[in-house]
């Protein structure tokens, strides 16, 4: 789940082989520490009782109405059920990415931060592939994954998702301001159905030029 040292250096902006030696040393140190704290988790829960209204941009799960908006509801419109998921890189990488104390090792904190972001995305992608294999065996397809805060879906709706992901689901809890703890976590939905198609993110429909998922092919 950890990226390679080179991949992490590239994520920080350095062309191949151009990172300062001390950075490579800190990355190696952080990776060694993280291997000792294997806390990555990814879980999903399937909800069968759903209704999708693309005109209203809503998704009703049992009796809870979510408003992910047009972009997401169009992508999942053929879904017969949805998987609600949570993935986390864990508390260690999340906590150590915090640099709020004056004596904090800022560089190490930054390495933890970037590593945590990559790890949780890798975990979510791996979970998606696992769900895909499981569903395909039963004749179902899956959509891409969608999270509150992206594709025009209000982040505050995360509270509605967590109605179905109670009791520290996946080791993740939600704050009042809709922030997940551990910080390096992602949650969201994936459409499942016999007619659904997996498609890359529809970035041309969205005006957020700095989105994490912009231009991703998978």
């Amino acid at each position: 789940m950890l990226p390679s040292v080179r991949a992490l250096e590239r994520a920080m902006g350095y062309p191949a082989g151009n990172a300062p030696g001390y950075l490579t040393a800190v990355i190696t140190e952080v990776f060694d520490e993280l291997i000792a704290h294997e806390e990555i988790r990814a879980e999903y829960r399937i909800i069968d009782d759903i209704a999708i209204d693309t005109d209203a941009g809503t998704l009703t799960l049992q009796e809870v109405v979510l408003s992910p908006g047009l972009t997401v509801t169009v992508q999942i419109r053929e879904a017969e059920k949805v998987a609600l998921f949570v993935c986390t890189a864990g508390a260690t990488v999340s906590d150590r990415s915090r640099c709020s104390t004056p004596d904090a090792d800022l560089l190490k904190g930054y390495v933890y931060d970037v590593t945590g972001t990559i790890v949780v995305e890798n975990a979510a992608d791996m979970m998606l592939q696992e769900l895909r294999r499981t569903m395909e065996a039963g004749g179902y397809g899956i959509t891409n994954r969608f999270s509150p805060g992206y594709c025009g879906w209000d982040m505050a709706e995360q509270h509605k998702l967590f109605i179905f992901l109670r009791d520290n689901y996946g080791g993740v809890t939600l704050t009042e301001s809709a922030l997940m703890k551990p910080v390096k976590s992602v949650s969201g939905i994936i459409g499942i159905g016999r007619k659904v198609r997996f498609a890359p993110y529809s970035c041309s429909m969205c005006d957020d030029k700095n989105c994490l998922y912009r231009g991703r092919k998978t």
Partner: protein
Amino acid sequence: MNQLLEKISACVEFGKIDIKSPYPPSMKDQEGAFELTRSALDAGISAGEILEEALIPAMSRVGQKFSRNEIFVPQMLMAAKAMSSSMTHIRPYYLSGETRRKGTFIIGTVTGDLHDIGKNLVAMMIEGAGWEIIDLGVDVSVDEFIDAAEKHPGAIVGLSALLTTTMENMRKTTATLKEKFPHLQILVGGAPVTSEFCEKIGADFYAPDPQGAVDYLSTLAQ
């Protein structure tokens, strides 16, 4: 320039914090910004001179290199940390009034966002440019920003957001602050923020990087 000031400037620019710091390797086992600043003060160089002739030019060079993609966040963090170690000795001179601040800058990451690396980096750069920093931390509510603005009249406020998901909270914070303090200058920044977004939410300035924030503040301090 005085040799000590030149050395302090080089230590800050290349991130040599103190004698124990093994980075950069070419300066290993040499005194860093922390020790050299103490030596400079002991030698009679004023805190103002150290700030104006060593720290500010060094951080300016760092900021410019970052803006040109010649260095990246890790090197900037090391430089900021080195500058911060130097500031440990400089701060008492602000308190005594011997050295004057350029103004007060209130900074915080907006509610719902716990990211602090970028915010800390900006705060350190701005402090190094001679400003007093009121760091409210992360996940800062609108009320906390209002309280700080009331306590520090004339201060400039900086809002940080790293998540696309918390940009809406930046909009709400800006709107509430502007309603309460129409003349308050608000600077915004963070990975997903753009100048278009800044304009849309009614903030005064978008800083694409820490140096941009420093440059903008220096125009206000004139």
